[in-house]
Each structure stands twice: as structure tokens, then as C-alpha cells.
């Protein structure tokens, strides 16, 4: 039965009018979707109502095409932070994400660069990218059609990035970031947002998540393990006794910023905050998931724990429940300390130093990001 259904799914050509949820994910015939999309209606209705009221406020805040945004943020940073934590209205998400991530500035500073990367460059990663295209958000209507516009855009963005930053190239997981962005903005916008994140336009650069050795993944997992022990000692101890290591459950949380296996309505809410406040929200949400399920988890043995990490209950992934818990964890300064501690440990063991630059680029230097893209492009004729 399973097989038959799966085979039907691969028929090429435009997807028939199968029911999709409000984000465009194809609804499973019954039961809950693996992506957890077809959640109870109340969540969606609640959000839609709330959105209606918020859109007005938000439009005022950002001005036409984002013209008032910087001014507003400078004057009312706390209002902005509070509103973002409550969720950006879905219809404005794409624009606001570009404003808060600094990607809009990168785009404006680098006209034509994206096009050059896509059209004139070849990438050593092309085959690897192609292999994963149909394995990225396979249940989303936009990415379903083989060689359709969604898959082509995804390919272009990933290829362009792999040329733009040949150290990183293409790494599995990046597709989920790019795919998520493409649901809210054009290829070129998505590309520059990816650049803003990985090169650190506003926050610490995240390229270390994907560089050889995955140095930043290792660092984040180290920090996360310590935070669990400090914030939830009983659970942290239980994990140690059960020989649970955070790489067993949290690596994909960091590598894809919760876009891999969580309900989409949670993913976008996490991304709202992530783009404005930085990676710390991934730690906070991770801790909140564990806190929410704490009393269950402390009772579970090894195998059941691993199962639980991949099957959080629906209530736990409701953003209006989870995010308030997440924000109760004050982790910023502790994260900094733990980063230093980790770097020291690394130096002690004489390991690589590729996570060195952890401070965001200043806006001034952002134009260099673009020129670097161009020099990359001119230096390499493959």
C-alpha cells in the first residue's frame, strides 16, 4: 500500500489540484502529515485573525517597500522586537525578512551579481545539488513538480551560492534554508539572504555550519549540551546516563534552523525571531522543547528518547506555546562564555580554527561581500 502510493507520487507533470494547507504543503490524505502541517484548524484561524489586526500596524511600521523601516527600528527597537516575537504577518514576511537580515542592502549594493553567478558560472557541486533538489520540501506544492519553477529556483540559488563561496560549496541542509526563503521571495532575494546569514551581515556568520569539519555545528552542540545541563540538570544528567549526545537529535535543528522536520507554522515563527535576534533563538527553542516535554523525557530510556526527539507532541510545536517558553531562557551571555570555553578547548586539542570570525560584518564592509563574489567569479574559470 505504502509503495503504491509512493509510486503514484512520482508521476511527473503538474501536480493535480490536491488539497494544500495555507503554506502550500500538500495535505496528507488523513492523519497528521509528516511535516506536521495539517494541524488543528484553531491555530490557523487564530493566526489569521491576529494577522488582520497586525498587518495594519506592520504596514505603518515598514512604510512603502520598507522605506520607513530603518528609521522605525532605530527609534523603537523594543517595539520591533516584541512585534517580531509575536509573529510577522505572513503576507509581509518576505519583505520583512529581507529588511531585518540585511539582505536587502546586499542586493542593492550588488546589482547583477546574482545573475552572473547563475548564468556564467559552473559549480563543482552541481550534481550534488541536483540529487537533493527533489528531496527538499518534497511535500510542498511549489517544489513537487519535477523541473518545475520551484525546483529550478532552488537549484539556481544553491548553485549560485556554491560558486559564490567555494569553501562552503553545497552542503545538505542548505537546501532547506534556500527552499524556505523561496517560499517568501524571489531567487535573487533568497540568494542574498543566504549570503547575509552565512557571511554574517547582521549577526555572527553561520558559514561554519557548512564548512569542512562542520566546526560551528560542533560548537553549537557543545554549547547546547552545556545549556541543557545547566538549565535542566535532572534531564541533562539523565541524558548522560542514557548516553544521549546532542548530535543524535539537535544537529538538524542547527543545520537547518528548524526548517527540516518541524511544523511549518512553527518554522516561520522561529525564523522571524532568528533573523532579527540571531542563532540564540535556536538554542532557546531547543531548550523549550526539552522543557515542555521534560517530565516525560526524564523517564524514557535511550531508544525511546531518540524516538521522542523526532516525534514531539503537537502541543509542544505550537509556536504560541513554545516561543513564550523559549524566551524565558536567558542564554546570550552564557552562550558567549561557552563559545570561549569551547574555543579554548579546541586550541588545547590543537584543532582547526575555522570558526574564528564570529562577529558580524559591519554594514560598511558589506559591499566587499559582493565584490568578493565578483572576484571569485573572475578568478575561477572552470
Amino acid at each position, binding site marked *: 500500500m*505504502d*509503495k503504491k502510493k*509512493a*509510486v503514484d*507520487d*512520482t508521476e511527473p507533470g503538474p501536480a493535480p489540484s490536491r488539497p494544500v494547507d495555507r503554506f502550500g504543503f500538500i495535505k496528507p490524505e488523513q492523519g497528521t502529515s509528516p511535516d506536521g502541517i495539517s494541524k488543528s484548524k484553531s491555530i490557523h484561524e487564530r493566526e489569521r485573525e491576529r494577522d488582520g489586526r497586525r498587518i495594519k500596524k506592520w504596514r505603518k511600521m515598514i512604510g512603502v517597500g520598507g522605506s520607513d523601516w530603518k528609521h522605525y527600528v532605530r527609534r523603537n527597537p523594543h517595539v520591533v522586537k516584541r512585534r517580531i516575537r509575536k509573529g510577522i504577518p505572513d503576507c509581509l514576511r518576505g519583505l520583512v525578512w529581507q529588511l531585518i537580515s540585511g539582505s536587502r542592502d546586499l542586493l542593492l549594493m550588488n546589482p547583477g551579481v546574482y545573475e552572473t553567478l547563475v548564468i556564467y558560472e559552473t559549480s563543482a557541486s552541481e550534481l*550534488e545539488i541536483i*540529487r*537533493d533538489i*527533489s*528531496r*527538499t*520540501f*518534497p*511535500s510542498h506544492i511549489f517544489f*513537487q513538480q519535477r523541473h518545475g519553477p520551484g525546483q529550478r529556483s532552488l537549484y539556481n540559488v544553491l548553485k549560485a551560492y556554491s560558486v559564490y563561496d567555494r569553501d562552503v560549496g553545497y*552542503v*545538505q*541542509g542548505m*537546501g*532547506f534554508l534556500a527552499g524556505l526563503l523561496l517560499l517568501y521571495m524571489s531567487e535573487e532575494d533568497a540568494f542574498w539572504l543566504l549570503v547575509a546569514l552565512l557571511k554574517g551581515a547582521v549577526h555572527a556568520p553561520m558559514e561554519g555550519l*557548512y564548512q*569542512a*569539519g*562542520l566546526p560551528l*555545528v*560542533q560548537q553549537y552542540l557543545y554549547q547546547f549540551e552545556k545549556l541543557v545541563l545547566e538549565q535542566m540538570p535532572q534531564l541533562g544528567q539523565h541524558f548522560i*546516563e*542514557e*548516553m544521549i*549526545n546532542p*548530535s*543524535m537529535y539537535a*544537529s*538538524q535543528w542547527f*543545520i*537547518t534552523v528548524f526548517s*527540516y*522536520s518541524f511544523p511549518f507554522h512553527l518554522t516561520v515563527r522561529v525564523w522571524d525571531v532568528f533573523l532579527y535576534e540571531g542563532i540564540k533563538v535556536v538554542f532557546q527553542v531547543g531548550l523549550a522543547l526539552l522543557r515542555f516535554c521534560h517530565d516525560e523525557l526524564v523517564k524514557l*530510556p*535511550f*531508544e*525511546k528518547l*531518540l524516538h521522542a526527539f*523526532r516525534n514531539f507532541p503537537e502541543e509542544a510545536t505550537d509556536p504560541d506555546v513554545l516561543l513564550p517558553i523559549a524566551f524565558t531562557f536567558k542564554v546570550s551571555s552564557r552562550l558567549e562564555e561557552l563559545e570561549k570555553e569551547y574555543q579554548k578547548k579546541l586550541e588545547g586539542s590543537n584543532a582547526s580554527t575555522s570558526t574564528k570570525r564570529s562577529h558580524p560584518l559591519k554594514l560598511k564592509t558589506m559591499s566587499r561581500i559582493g565584490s568578493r563574489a565578483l572576484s571569485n567569479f573572475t578568478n575561477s574559470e572552470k
Partner: protein
Amino acid sequence: MARRPAPWEQGGDEYDYLFKIVLIGDSGVGKSNLLSRFTRNSFSLDSKSTIGVEFATRTIQVEGKIVKAQIWDTAGQERYRAITSAYYRGAVGALLVYDVTKATTFENVKRWLKELRDHADSNIVVMLIGNKIDLKHLRSVSLEDATSFAEREGLSFVETSALDATNVDKAFQTVLTEIYRIISKKALAADEAGAGAGAVREGQSIQVSATDSSSFTSRCCSF
């Protein structure tokens, strides 16, 4: 003798032996679907690429004993070895998968063997698996080439289709049986030597030889 049950003995399921197995091989060869076919009898053509590691178990009978396989499915992309190679430690078996329709995935088998030599225990039982034989018209690695390669390298070998379930159970059964035979032979030898401390009692963690104590994966049998 009363003792606190070890973590892996809780949870209601009972077994005589617990073997840790890793699934490795290039990206896109079908590791995750082999695992889901074996543990849940399911297959999905539109599955996502594996990020990091995934885990599943299944318990089967091997020569009258109940053997539980704890299987780690790993991301295939080279860059991920930074994370996944830690999972080789403590593993007593490895299923090394290639895609019979993609010659490069077969050519890379050598690199995966080296990866195992570098990171896994030297006694790990390795089984070579050529997956996707349902795609007959696309085959680009012949059965003969793979068979002779496996013979040269001393690996068990089988071709499978996770899609139509051909040989999937057989592959896992073969590797688990092979491990079981090695373990029970060693246990027997230890018994005969009269070394009480070395004797293996069923249901216990088996440490046939010293393993890396820093491994977080030492919960199951290790050579």
C-alpha cells in the same frame, strides 16, 4: 544477584543480544529507505535527504536467539563525516550501500572502506549492498563486478531493492548472523579458557575486547 537494569535493558523488550549497526554510503543511494523498509516495512519515493543521523531498531531471530539491531542511518555527503564518523565507534556491523544505477557510488565504496578502517573497530563486519535493482533499465554496476570486488575485499554482498523489498531482510539477517557467530565463537572460547570474567552471559553488554572508553556508543556489543 540484584543489579540495576542497564539502560538498554529497560523498556519492556527482551533480547539476547544487542548489535549496533551503521548504514553508510554515498548520498542518495537509499540508506534511509533500506532502514525504513527493514524496521517499518515502508518506503517513500519523496523522502528528504538525511541531515546528521537517524536511528531505528528491529528485533529478529538469529539461530534461535533474539537479536536486536540498533541501526544508525547517516547522512551520506562527505562533509557530514565530521559528525557521522563518531557513530562508527562501537558498531559491530556496517551496511555499506551503493546505488547499482550510479557507478560513482560503487567507485566510492573503497573510500568508505577506508573511512571504516580509520574510524571503526577493525573487526567490524561489513556487508556491501547494491541497492535499487528495481531500476533494471538504469543499471550501471554489474552483479559480477560487485561480486568479485566483495570477494577480494572479504565482504558479504547482496543486491537489494528497498522499493520492492527484495533482499532487504536478507541483507540485515546476513550481517546480524555473521556478527552473532563471531560473538558466540568468542564467548565459547572465553568459556573454554575458563576465564570467568571473560565469559559472556546472554543479555549483557558484550565487551569482547577493550574499546575506546570515550565512545558514547558503547551501550551495545563491541568487539
